[in-house]
């Protein structure tokens, strides 16, 4: 299968260094303290944040900082082939842990000792890059909930197929057998909070793919920042704090 | 056959519950549910257990038993048609026999509507299989409160009313027999545990 045409176009018509269309929606759930939907092409993930609140299990109470709890689940209709078990399977458990680790570094936990922050990620549509979209949705939801963050962490994936480094793989490209590098970056601090890779990649090509992924993270972080600012502006106008622009 | 165990201490991980819990479990013996495969059987057992719980919860005074749980275990020896009604009656009798304080006995019975529009009380398995619509009702006759109602199929208004009345009447009869049975059992000397 050809993933990159001779003219340099991918299966969905994108250029190798082009991201899919991104859409962010904030405060989509009334019950959660913070919520967001992050869409990247056909991948659509909903995240909800509850907290900070008192720790539910006293044994897990941490004096030094907040406890971040995360659960990742996929809706039965999210994947091309219907998924019977949305949570509790190995992949979901692994991803819950991965996302939790990433978020724990992003949240300034020292400011909220002895408390707990619940982050729930629900995949509504899966078309490649779900873990990155999950991280992005979670970070947006945390920001919407007012949880202090070190930086606007963004996640992005990149791969290498047909001799080209490709940014933001969709499901077909992901299953193409090439490497899949998923990265979460804090752009201002320029530090990586997550690096995960499937498959093999020679070291020199790795540098190129890594750099591409980091670029993608920076762009996505910018988009998220713009979405958050716009949302805050709308809220401020609605509450009469500022006049409409 | 229904066995009641309790009140027993609730699992520690559930924490403090100010009302008791009813934990219902229903098992079909292999000869009672011969034609079903494993998943269907599992679904049938869990739905029967849910029905049982729904029917009994209102009758047992659970707030008198904080932090405890009652295990109601039912085994269906001969299944098919009207199982739920029999399950509810049996479980209610078992609870009464165990000395659990309740608001009332809970008889349950079913009604089938044939294609011709005839209503049959307490249908046999063949009648139930041939029904066009049916319902199962469990009620606390003294309080006249229905604890379980499950209606299947399409009913005309008059048919539904008649069906409900028929079921309520049937439950009234069942309660009388249940009461007699309990009184008779009390009269017998009890085997030492």
């Amino acid at each position, binding site marked *: 299968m050809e993933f990159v045409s001779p003219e340099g176009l991918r299966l969905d018509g994108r250029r190798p260094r082009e991201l899919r269309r991104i859409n962010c929606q904030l405060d989509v759930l*009334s019950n959660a303290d913070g919520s967001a939907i992050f869409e990247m092409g*056909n991948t659509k993930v*909903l995240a*909800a944040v*509850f907290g900070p609140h008192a720790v539910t299990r006293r044994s897990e109470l941490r004096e030094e900082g907040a406890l971040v*709890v995360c659960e990742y*689940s996929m*809706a*039965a*209709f999210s*994947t091309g082939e*219907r998924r019977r078990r*949305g*949570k*509790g399977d190995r992949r979901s458990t692994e991803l819950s842990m991965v996302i939790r680790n990433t978020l724990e570094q992003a949240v300034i936990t020292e400011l909220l000792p002895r408390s707990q922050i*619940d982050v*729930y990620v*629900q995949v*509504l*549509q899966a078309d490649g890059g779900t873990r990155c979209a999950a991280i992005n949705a979670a970070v947006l939801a945390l920001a919407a909930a007012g949880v202090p963050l070190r930086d606007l962490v963004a996640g992005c994936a990149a791969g290498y197929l047909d001799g080209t480094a490709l940014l933001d793989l969709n499901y077909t490209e992901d299953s193409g057998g090439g490497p899949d590098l998923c990265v979460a970056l804090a752009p201002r601090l320029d530090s990586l909070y997550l690096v995960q890779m499937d498959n093999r990649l020679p070291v020199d090509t790795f540098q190129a793919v890594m750099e591409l992924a980091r670029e993608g993270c920076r762009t996505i972080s910018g988009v998220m920042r713009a979405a958050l600012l716009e949302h805050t502006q709308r809220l401020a106008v609605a509450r009469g704090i500022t006049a409409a622009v | 056959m229904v066995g009641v165990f309790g009140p027993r201490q609730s699992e520690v991980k559930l924490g403090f519950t100010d009302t008791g819990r009813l934990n219902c479990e229903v098992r079909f013996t292999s000869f*009672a*549910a011969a034609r079903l495969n494993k998943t*269907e*059987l599992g679904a*049938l057992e869990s*739905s*029967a257990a*849910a*029905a049982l719980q*729904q029917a009994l919860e*209102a009758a047992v005074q659970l707030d008198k038993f904080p932090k405890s749980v009652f295990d109601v275990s039912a085994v269906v020896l001969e299944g*098919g*048609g*009207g*199982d*739920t009604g029999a399950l509810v009656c049996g479980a209610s009798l078992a609870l009464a026999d165990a000395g659990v304080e309740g608001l009332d006995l809970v008889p349950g019975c079913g009604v*089938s509507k044939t294609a011709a529009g005839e209503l049959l009380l307490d249908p046999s398995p*063949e009648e*139930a*299989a*041939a029904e*066009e*619509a*049916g319902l*199962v009702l469990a009620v606390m006759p003294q*309080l*006249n*409160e*229905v*604890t379980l*109602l*499950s*209606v*299947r*199929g*399409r*009913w005309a*208004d008059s048919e*539904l009313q008649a069906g*409900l009345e028929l079921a309520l009447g049937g439950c009234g009869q069942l309660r009388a027999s249940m009461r007699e049975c309990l009184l008779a059992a009390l009269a017998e000397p009890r085997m030492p545990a």
Partner: protein
Amino acid sequence: MRPIELELGVIAQAAGSARLHIGATDVIVGVKVEVASPSPFAPTQGRLGVTVEFSPCASPVYQGRFGETYGEQIAAAIEASLAPSTRAGGAAAAAAAPANGGAAGASTSATATAAPTPSASGPSWGLDLGKLCISAGKTAWALYVDALVLNDDGNVVGAVSAATLAALVDTRIPKVEVTTDAAGEEEIELDDSPGAAWRLDVSRVPLVVTVAQVGSQCVVDLAAPEERCSSSALHVAVNRAGQVCGATSSGRAGVEASMLLAMTETAQRLAPGLWEQIMRFLQSPAR
């Protein structure tokens, strides 16, 4: 009833989908179709499976497996309202019974009295599973209705029922060509082009209306705080003609026998209007 917001086609990969808001209650229903083998009890019919899941996004209590039983109960009620006997396995001795009619036999506690599966999907069923058959005894469409509750502000059953109706209207099933090759083996060919898809007939699909008892009154569409005040409720499935197609009781206390009929009557009054309203919206060109 609270105003309803409905959106179709929210899940691109599903055959049909709908997102429904009623008050703050938020549910998404996705319908997926797969080619599968029919049940041995009903070789000329397709399969139907309904699941209801509570997303932890609705509340932290739904983490892990909590809410699974509640979801199963709602799923059983919805599935029974569409096709009564496919779930309640039932009588061991019963032979394949004639159409266990009626578009609904809501049983959150699906009773064992229902017949295993009917031999023919009768005209009184909510969904004609016979239309889902591709090749009798060998292949048929399996229809999976998956509901996800994103926010619970009361009346989840009603929301899921209405969203299911909408999602079924939105569902497009690809046309199938069955060819027999030289060896007598059957080949299935799916026609994926958008124009070739067909839609389900939903004219007999009922809506479930939850009527609760608060004090001595019958109340419909309870919000979450109101639900905590009610001791018992009746979920009544009513079709567009106002006929009762099923009912299930729920709640920790019993329902007064005299109230039962009043409750079903309330549901019968409301459901047809709601049905028409939803269908009008779904079929309007503006959508």
